[in-house]
């Protein structure tokens, strides 16, 4: 789901940087308002490492193969730290392994970071009801957060790639290929929902203070 360099027009890359810049500024100002901004950094750092490594865990879904993104999980557990964490994770992925790109860093951060923040809002909205209840309620919240995160990211990826195909590429072929790849991500959305649900259920039982974002 990372968009590499050279796929998008310059205007779109610039727009991506603008949106990512705004979102980063907003996240950092919210982080600054906390009593102790440094307290959450160890958690953010370790979850960034998890995000970085998650793309290595391949799940073959014919005809493509997909990987976990942990977007919903990062949003729920990190809150406003999620956007800078995802931005940093994407930067390292682009620089080290050419997953995504540097010109498209803003766009990729937007595609993955904004859904993380939306997952956080969703999590925050229902945490009072769902976290205190039984395991099933926590699991349901985790599942919703998981599918929201990846689902919105997949939709954004599809819309951006399909609408900005350069003129010298065969549009019909490329659209069909993107549609196939996006369809292969639908099972991933369910998988992430299940993964986020089980992890949140576990953490809520064993260490609930980790969910205080």
């Amino acid at each position, binding site marked *: *789901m*990372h968009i*590499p360099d050279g796929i998008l027009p310059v205007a779109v890359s610039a727009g991506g940087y603008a949106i990512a810049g705004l979102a980063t500024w907003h996240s950092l100002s919210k982080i600054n308002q906390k009593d102790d901004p*440094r307290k959450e*950094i*160890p*958690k953010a*750092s*370790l979850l*960034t*490492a*998890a995000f*970085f*490594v998650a*793309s*290595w*865990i*391949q799940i073959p879904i014919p005809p493509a*193969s*997909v*990987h976990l993104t942990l977007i919903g999980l990062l949003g729920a557990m990190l809150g406003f730290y999620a956007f800078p964490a995802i931005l940093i994770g994407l930067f*390292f992925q682009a620089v*080290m*392994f*050419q*997953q995504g790109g540097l010109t498209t860093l803003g766009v990729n951060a937007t595609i993955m970071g904004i859904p993380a923040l939306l997952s956080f809002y969703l999590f925050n909205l229902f945490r009072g009801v769902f976290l205190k209840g039984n395991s099933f309620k926590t699991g349901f919240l985790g599942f919703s957060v998981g599918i929201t995160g990846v689902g919105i990211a997949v939709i954004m990826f599809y819309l951006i790639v399909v609408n900005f195909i350069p003129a010298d590429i065969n549009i019909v072929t490329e659209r069909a290929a993107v549609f196939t790849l996006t369809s292969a991500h639908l099972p991933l959305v369910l998988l992430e929902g299940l993964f986020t649900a089980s992890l949140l259920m576990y953490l809520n039982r064993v*260490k609930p203070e980790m969910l205080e974002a």
Partner: protein
Amino acid sequence: MKRKFILALIISFLGIGVNLSPVLAHGANIKYESNMTYKIEATFEDGAPMDNAQVTIYAPDNPADPWEKGLTDENGIFYLSPDLSKAGLWLVQVRKAGHGVSVNITIDEGQFVSGETSLSKAQIILMTVSVLWGFVGTALYFSRRKN
């Protein structure tokens, strides 16, 4: 207790880092190498093509065993794509019904050009572990006890 938990988390992340799949997620790779095709056209003295003649190719590193064997087409043409990494004299022999001819084709040292964009597995592992340790070190630094 909190330290032990963080330590357990760190060790599990390092474990994930080491269990790397060899395939990059949606990364793409290009491997390129130079390729040259020689058109071998064999004719009899009167100009008639040597159609369906036996072609035997010998590489410079093994003049005893044929590198490739084939037949010319109805126009006496055979296409040869030698392995450009084997520099030296390539022997091409064409024979039909007792008549034959051979030629030496020179492949120079510099003709073979190749490369690829991907990293070796060792490089990938080293880079991933370095980055992961950066994140883990950050977490450890910020979770140290304040004096």
